[in-house]
């Protein structure tokens, strides 16, 4: 089936603007702790989530916001959760890495790789109780070295379960270039577990949607799991405020702090040879440079790409964008409203 690009763009834009608001609130200090954005992954998430039906399940990683939004979780509840409010999605107990929505069969985890086993369990209960449904596992390419995720691929194959293993490959795990720590290739790994694996551009919603559709079909037909490796990037970096991100944005200020100890490490007596030391400095600088280039100034933004396909109907696009922006403004407003007094308390 042809995807409805307008609907998909709306989903993606809604998620993007919501997350932009989250960034703002986090900057303001209203959201605590780490904050991992799904910005840059919207086409992958929309391409899958838009194909889900009632009874399908979602196993999410530390970037659970876009999938939950697109699946229909109330954005006000979500934002209140981030704010740690008792009237948040999880009563302020979970936070952005530990988001749960029972009615949507959606569970998150901040533990790398945990979405694999989680999707398998959802899929098993689906097969036994909700025939024709499936479970999606979202995870990054760095997670492909975590044992439980690898195990779960095998388990899904031998139990022939309807699981979509969706690897969002941005090439980075925090500040490590994933290929440097990953042997072989991810599609081969999937094959090694007996599962078809497909690589696709995760910024191109149409190609991705088609790949997703096929995998969804296989799953619903009882033909077992599929692995999808979809490329993407994270223009906000691994998480908000990571030192790398700060260097990318204010190189002079932040590099200053780093440089002193680094230079001292070059000169201190005892240690590696000078050649080795200089090599290491180069490696660190190259890592910095690469992350800035690859992550923070990404090439393809899935929203821009999709938008280009819709630009011919500019007025519709304008309307849509204005509408979504308004929606988000209202969401933020509502989320920030003072908590309602609980009746129980006043009685």
């Amino acid at each position, binding site marked *: 089936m042809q995807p409805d690009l307008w609907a998909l763009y709306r989903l993606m834009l809604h998620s993007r603007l919501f997350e932009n608001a989250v960034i703002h609130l986090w900057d303001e200090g209203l959201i605590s702790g780490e904050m991992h954005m799904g910005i840059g992954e919207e086409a992958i998430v929309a391409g899958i989530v838009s194909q889900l039906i009632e009874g399908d399940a979602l196993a999410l990683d530390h970037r659970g916001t876009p999938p939950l939004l697109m699946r229909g979780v109330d954005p006000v509840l979500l934002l209140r959760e981030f704010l740690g409010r008792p009237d948040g999605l999880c009563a302020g107990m979970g936070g952005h890495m530990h988001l749960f929505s029972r009615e949507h069969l959606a569970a998150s985890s901040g533990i790398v790789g945990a979405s694999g086993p989680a999707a*398998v369990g959802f899929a098993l209960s689906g097969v036994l*109780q909700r025939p024709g449904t499936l479970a999606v596992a979202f995870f990054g390419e760095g997670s492909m070295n975590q044992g439980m995720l690898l195990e779960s691929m095998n388990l899904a194959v031998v139990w022939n379960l309807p699981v979509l293993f969706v690897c969002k490959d941005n090439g980075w795990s925090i500040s490590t270039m994933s290929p440097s720590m990953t042997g072989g290739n991810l599609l081969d790994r999937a094959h090694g577990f007996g599962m078809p694996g497909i690589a696709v551009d995760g910024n191109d919603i149409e190609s991705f949607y088609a790949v997703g559709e096929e995998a969804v079909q296989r799953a619903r037909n009882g033909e077992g799991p599929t692995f999808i490796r979809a490329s993407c990037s994270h223009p906000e970096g691994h998480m908000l405020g990571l030192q790398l991100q700060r260097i990318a944005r204010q190189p002079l200020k932040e590099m200053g702090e780093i440089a002193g100890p680094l230079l001292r490490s070059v000169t201190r007596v005892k240690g590696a040879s000078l050649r080795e030391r200089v090599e290491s400095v180069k490696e660190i600088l190259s890592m910095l440079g690469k992350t800035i280039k690859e992550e923070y100034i990404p090439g393809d933004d899935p929203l821009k790409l999709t938008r280009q396909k819709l630009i011919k109907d500019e007025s519709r696009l304008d309307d849509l964008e204005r509408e979504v922006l308004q929606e988000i403004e209202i969401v933020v407003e509502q989320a920030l409203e003072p908590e309602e007094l609980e009746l129980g308390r006043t009685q």
Partner: protein
Amino acid sequence: MRKLNFSEAAEDALAQAMAQDKHIIYFGEDVVANRRNLLVRFGKDRVRNTPISESAFLGAAVTAAMSGLRPVVEIMIIDFIAVAMDALLNHAAKIETFSGGKWNVPLVVRAACGGGYGDGGQHEQSLWGWLAHIPGLSVVVPSTPADAGGLILAALEHPNPVIFLEHKLLAENWLDFMGTGGRKTVQFDVPVEGARGPAPRKWQQIPIGQAVERRKGSDLTIISIGVGVHRALEAADSLDEQGISVSVIDLRTISPLDKGAIIESVAKTGRLLVVDEDYESFGLSGELAAITLEAGIPLKYNRVCTMGTIPFSRELEDQALPNVQRIKKAAVSLMEN
């Protein structure tokens, strides 16, 4: 009342529950062979072999439990939980809290535990106090066939994760598997009353968190669990002859502890001896000390636990695990001071 072996009782109660509730499913390594009776009766959709992938299948059990099934997951022996600990520590135990109380994890983890048959320190641990440290997990350890059946039933009704541990000296299938191997040439100190005993025709729950007084006495309270209870009872009989009157409490559940029963008994006797096959430090034995002190009871306290990594040698092993000798000595010293 009919008599059953420990493992028969657990299986019987499990079958009763599975017949009533079709959401109960059972999986783990080799269950096709080891739980063949359940397989035959309930079919291969509900009784499943797994690969040797504990972290994947225990992790899967968590979400299966969250989405309408009631999985019983078998981790062959509890020592192996280490490879799958994340599913317990960071997921099963926490999701009810994370979800703001809106989503629970009705999961039963079943595993053999304990030593006393010479299998070495990576295969004979108890770890119940260790698991109990994690908020959100219940841990039960039956010491008789009747408790095995009643507690597994309760575990299957519990809204959140329960670890159900069966001591290998009690569960004849596991002892045959790992200890006896069909040999007539080996003997183990199997507590008779724990390995075989009366069992109801129709099982009723034994509520989680309910201890039971196995023996009344006035001088000293021994609190124990699993095989330790039987060792304590044996020691108590012998101490009786020396004029020391011992009360023995079988916790049955480690987490949550039956604080009422513990405090009541220790308040009477003023002396607490903990007999715990799990490691001594930072575990059950300490927690019992804390609970009684918190209750403001002045008491004398001693403990007989497993002191370090369990030796392979049967002789050294018997010294390392709580034995009747050590219990008696500890009791006597409690009376003297």
